[in-house]
Each structure stands twice: as C-alpha cells, then as structure tokens.
C-alpha cells in the first residue's frame, strides 16, 4: 500500500525539522559567544561538549537525520511546485508581498547546506592548532582564531551567516503559519519578530570573525606601538 503524504503535512514536517534546526542554531550561538571570553572559556566549553561522548554522537546523528528530512521534503515540494505551472507567465506576477528572503529560500537553504559541510571540515574535523597573535597554540580556540584572521575566510563565513539570517527571517513566521499558530491579528507581529531574530543571528555570529580580526590587529601592534597595549596582550595570555 502506498501512502501519499498530504502537501500540508509535508510542509509541517519541514516546519518541525526547521524548528529543531533553529534550536540547534540557538544552542550553537550560545556556545560560540564563549569566544568573546577568551581561549580558556572557549576551550573548556569545547572540551565539555566533547566529553559527552555517546550522547554527543547520538545528538549529532539526530541532527543529521533532521537535516536530511528537512532537505528531502523541501526538494520534493520545490519540484512539485515547479511542475504546478508548466507554462510560465510572460509577465511574472509582481512581487507585491514576497520579500527577497522568501523568494530565495531554496537558494539560501542550498548555501547553508554547503556551508555546514565546509564548516564541519573546517572546525570539527580539522586539527585543533592555530596561530594566535604570532604564537602556535593548542585548542579549538586557536583553530577558529587562525581561520578568522584570514579576511577571505571571514568574508565567506559572514556570507554564509547572512544566508542563515535570510532563511530565518522568512522561516520563523512561516513556521507559525504552517502550524496554524498565527491569526490575522498576530501575523504582522510574528513577521516583525522573525525579521528581528534573523538580524540578531547575523549580527552576533557575524561579529565573531570581526572580533577575532580586530583582536589580531591589536595583538600585532605592540611591536611598533606603545607599551600599554602590550600589557593588555600579556594580561590576556595569562
């Protein structure tokens, strides 16, 4: 017996998996702002996470499955949707209501997928050493730090974060609509909240590489600069 999943249910599965993935983004955000508190705070957070052992593997496996479900159902719906209009308009119905974020959802989604793969290779499955202010250091902090001192690397990271941000500005309010949790009254507010969260995510994650680059600039200064800046660096290292 072949069971056909109704289109609305498919969308609700996408919304649910999307919700779980944004939960991951939020948790990841909370973990990664540890970078602001220096290498010790960040490395100990990373170690603590790794020490979860089997639980961490279970969570990772769960995340991968959620990610694949989210993508799989989206791909089938996008294909179905394209098929629903075999002859295109000469003049495409004007975008009176659709935001840019809404229009580029499948593309930001694809970009996010590519980013996640690269990001894992970059930080998770890479050696955890790196140059911090001209010295080789051990730990995830050093790895992240070194990567972000490269402006091109940072730029690509910021572009990817913008994709996540765009994706979320549409996704959050869309999720409420798909679950039927919005009303005519609440919908405009949900749209505003959605945009705010998307922008906040972009600002916080986006500030990480900028923070590192500024810090590296400051660390390089003491060779040519005044003694008080060097004091600050020494203080940081202890």
């Amino acid at each position, binding site marked *: 017996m072949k069971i056909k999943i109704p289109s*609305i*249910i498919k969308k609700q599965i996408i919304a649910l998996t999307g919700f779980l993935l944004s939960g991951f983004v939020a948790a990841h955000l909370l973990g990664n702002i540890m970078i602001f508190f220096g290498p010790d705070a960040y490395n100990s957070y990373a170690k603590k996470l790794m020490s979860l052992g089997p639980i961490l593997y279970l969570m990772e496996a769960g995340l991968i499955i959620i990610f694949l479900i989210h993508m799989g159902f989206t791909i089938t719906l996008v294909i179905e*949707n394209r098929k629903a209009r075999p002859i295109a308009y000469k*003049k495409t*119905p004007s975008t009176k*209501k*659709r935001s840019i974020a*809404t229009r580029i959802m499948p593309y930001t989604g694809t970009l996010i997928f590519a980013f996640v793969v690269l990001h894992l290779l970059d930080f998770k499955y890479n050696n955890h050493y790196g140059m911090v202010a001209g010295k080789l250091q051990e730990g995830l902090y050093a790895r992240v730090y070194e990567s972000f001192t490269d402006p091109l690397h940072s730029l690509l990271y910021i572009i990817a974060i913008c994709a996540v941000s765009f994706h979320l500005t549409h996704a959050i309010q869309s999720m409420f609509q798909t679950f039927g949790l919005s009303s005519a009254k609440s919908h405009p507010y949900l749209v505003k909240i959605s945009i705010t969260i998307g922008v906040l995510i972009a600002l916080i994650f986006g500030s990480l590489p900028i923070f590192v680059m500024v810090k590296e600039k400051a660390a390089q200064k003491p060779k040519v600069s005044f003694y008080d800046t060097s004091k600050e660096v020494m203080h940081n290292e202890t």
Partner: protein
Amino acid sequence: MKTINITVKVWRQENAVAKGHFEDYKLTEIDTDMSFLEMLDVLNEGLTLSGELPLAFDSDCREGICGMCGAVVNGEPHGPVKAVTICQLHMRSFTDGQTLVIESWRSKAFPVIKDIVVDRSAFDRIMMAGGYISVKTGTTTDANANLITSDIAEEAMDAAQCIGCGACVAACPNASAMLFVGAKVSHLSLLPQGKIECVERVRKMVTQMDKEGFGSCSNEYECSVSCPKEINISHIARMNRKMIKATIKSVVG
C-alpha cells in the same frame, strides 16, 4: 469623454491542445470609463469585422460577484486595482500609449480551453470532495436554533466571500490553491452546522487539492494581495491547524 490609445498583447490559443502565442492588437480611442471587459468587447468587434476569430474570455455578472472573469494583466491577476475582479477594472486605470500584456491564469490544474479561458473544474471537484454540510432538506430551521456570536459570524462571512475566481492560484508562485481551500474550510468549520464534519472535510478537500496538481503553499502571501475579496491568510492557518487534527485522527483512528 477622455479616450486613450493602447496596445494589447494577448494570449491566443486555438484549443486545449494547440500551442498558444501572443498577438498584438492596437486599440484607438478607448473610452476611459469603459470596463476592461468592454474594452475586450471593442477588440472583438474589430476582430469580427476584419474576419478574424474573436478573443474568447469568460464573464458573467460583470459586477464583481460571480467569479467567472479573470485574466492576468501586466503580471497582476485581475489587473492593477486592489480588491476588484477584472470586470470591475476600468480603463482609467491605464495610461495613453500603454501596452497591456493579457494572459490566462497559469496553472497545471487550470488547463487553457481557448485563448484566456481556463477550465476551473478542479475547484468544483475540491468542493465535491468535502466542501458541503450533510443536512436533511426540508423546511428552514428556526433562525435562533443555532446561536452564533457576532465575531464568529463576521469571520465566517469574510471567508464565505470567496467567489472561486482562481486569482489566488494565478498569483501564487507555486500555483497553489491554499487560499481557496482555506477559505472554504474556514467558512464551514467556523459555523456550528459545519463543525461536525470538519476533520473529515479538511482531509478530503486537501487530498483532492493535491490530486488536481496544484502546488503547495510556501507562505509567500501573494494570493491574499491579489484576491478580489481580500480573503485573509489566517484562513490558510486555520486549515493547517485542522489538518494536524485530521492527520492525528486518521493515524490514531
């Protein structure tokens, strides 16, 4: 009397299987007080006199309440004026020398019959699947037998305004019929007479909607903007909510 000269670029298609194309026609001295359909009548008069086949288009009441007419004008279902059907659109909304691109609704579920006339029986089949209430016929029930609060009655009425013209499908980037089905589901499920069969109705109507080849909703909200009756997207949200209930019920039993 103000008149304008316009060029219409209109979709011509001989029949359901023929390949369509755009044809340009120049129209001079069009009275700006004419309705859009009257302008098409003028076009057809000219075509008939010159021995060409007139343009086939749908219309019935010509007062914006029946849902029969409809075309996409310059990328806008029912034209540039908000909350009107194309029969209530007037030529004063256009400027002298303007080119109007006139197309049919574009959807796999709405195949073209001829020119800009499309077959919207997909909507009828969705209604037949569950867009009704099962009641005994006979004498009218007492007016106060079913108590309905004013706000519920208003909201049901807002949904019931849908005339089934199909502009929502035309406007949707995915050619989805969610606003139409949402309005029908919402209208019936809000009222005590319709509540009884609500869960089954949602399941049946959505199943039929999928079968017809409409796309799915990606919450772009273009439908509501193009709707001549300004049906709110909250009716789609209500249908989504009911669909969760219907699915749980069909799985659990």
